[in-house]
């Protein structure tokens, strides 16, 4: 746990699709754009690979926020993987909000390979939102921290 006088640094788990958003993160790095080190990127081959259980597990094991990102609709490397994700995640987001998780902790976005700028802005914005919300304690297993 962080001490009171220290600034709270949130942990954000990010699931990125290999073909778009991971590339965007890469291009942001190549362009030497600064973004907060709070996100932990997990690369998946397609956003369609992301099971709602991944998100729940991340929250259970102490993530303060989760970001899911893939290609824009129509741009999917596998034609329609992200469109299935869109349906699944619509419901997951509703259920998580329904159970009392703050809406600012779970984000879904479409970022294409060339949108390095959008990626940096989004990560900065989400980090700030989660930082304001403070540590996520609701879904976290007790004593799992560190």
């Amino acid at each position, binding site marked *: 746990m962080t001490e009171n006088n220290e600034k709270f640094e949130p942990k954000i788990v990010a699931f990125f699709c290999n073909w778009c958003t991971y590339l965007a993160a890469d291009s942001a790095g190549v362009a030497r754009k600064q973004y907060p080190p709070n996100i932990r990127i997990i690369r998946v081959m397609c956003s369609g690979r992301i099971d709602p259980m991944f998100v729940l597990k991340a929250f259970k094991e102490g993530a303060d926020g989760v970001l899911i990102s893939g290609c824009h609709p129509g741009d999917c490397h596998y034609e*329609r993987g992200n469109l299935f994700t869109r349906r699944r995640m619509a419901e997951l987001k509703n259920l998580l909000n329904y159970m*009392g998780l703050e809406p600012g902790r779970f984000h879904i976005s479409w970022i294409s390979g060339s949108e390095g700028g959008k990626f940096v802005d989004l990560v900065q914005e989400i980090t700030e939102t989660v930082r304001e919300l403070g540590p996520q304690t609701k879904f976290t297993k007790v004593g799992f921290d560190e």
Partner: protein
Amino acid sequence: MSNREEKMRVMVRELLESGKIKYFIGYEGGSDAFYVSPCFISNPKDVDKLIFGPNCYSNLSNYILEEQKKVLKRGEEKDPRPIGIIVKGCDSRSIVQLMSENKIKAADVIILGVPCKGIIDPEKIEAVAKKMKIPGKALMGMKLAETSDGFIGEFDGKEYKFPKSDVTMDKCKVCMYPNPIISNELLDVEVEVTGKLDYSDIEKLEKMTPDEKWKFWESEMSKCIRCHACREVCPVCYCKECVVDPHNLVVSPKTQSKTKENKSMWIERSAELPENIFFHLTRMNHMFGRCTNCGECERVCPMGIRLSLLTKKIEKDAKELFNFESGVKKDEKPLLGVYKEGDPDDFIR
């Protein structure tokens, strides 16, 4: 004895004697008037055991799938004949849903449908009887009859009246499909739809702040003892291997404890709050677009968790987001198995 009960027995006897069905799944009398148990009849002599009345609460469609779990002995051939089953309106939706998922075929079952006017909740009627000071013996042994606005129980020449709104199950008040959607034979004339869609309890929860919602769900979910009764009773929860069970791991003397530890660790079996939430949310994610709101999970829950608040929520979301209702059309594609260009995307940045 009601007319439809007699009609059912005649039909079942005929089906069994002619050998058209393997066995019939119905209800038989239980320990008292309001607790009935499911029964499987394969001998025409036993047909008189079958009952049907407003006390037959359980959803029998789950038992059709038991047939598929059966392991054949060597040399034994599969019996191709269908299974007979009796369904109410709400149970028929489960069967339609299973058919749309290709889990059962229309030729696998012979369905006797009963248009339903409401089913008695055993817990509610016990509470009402306590208020009316009906002796326990009378409650246990009474014979039930349906009237237009309630139920009449008869015992020892005395009659007790129960108003319908006090004793029927919560799901009956919002029931939109009292008549079976699918059936080979109807045992009664079709009834009017009297239920009204009501999501007021869901909307009330939705309007709360995150912390208020969490306070409610924290107290609900910490009750859970992870007996998995909700999963077992659910007609559409039929996976051979559930994410909760680690039974697919082959253990040999060389298997290290670390391997066992790491296998199937999505959800631990311990009844801790985060694990309980994970379990129920995962179940709801798997039920999305498939749950027909038959209310069985809430009925069997030994801890009284209000699971209907979750199942109704996913039903409402499926309707609002995707204009989809499960268990209504036999040849509909599963909700999460298809997509549309214009699916809602206002939550995506």
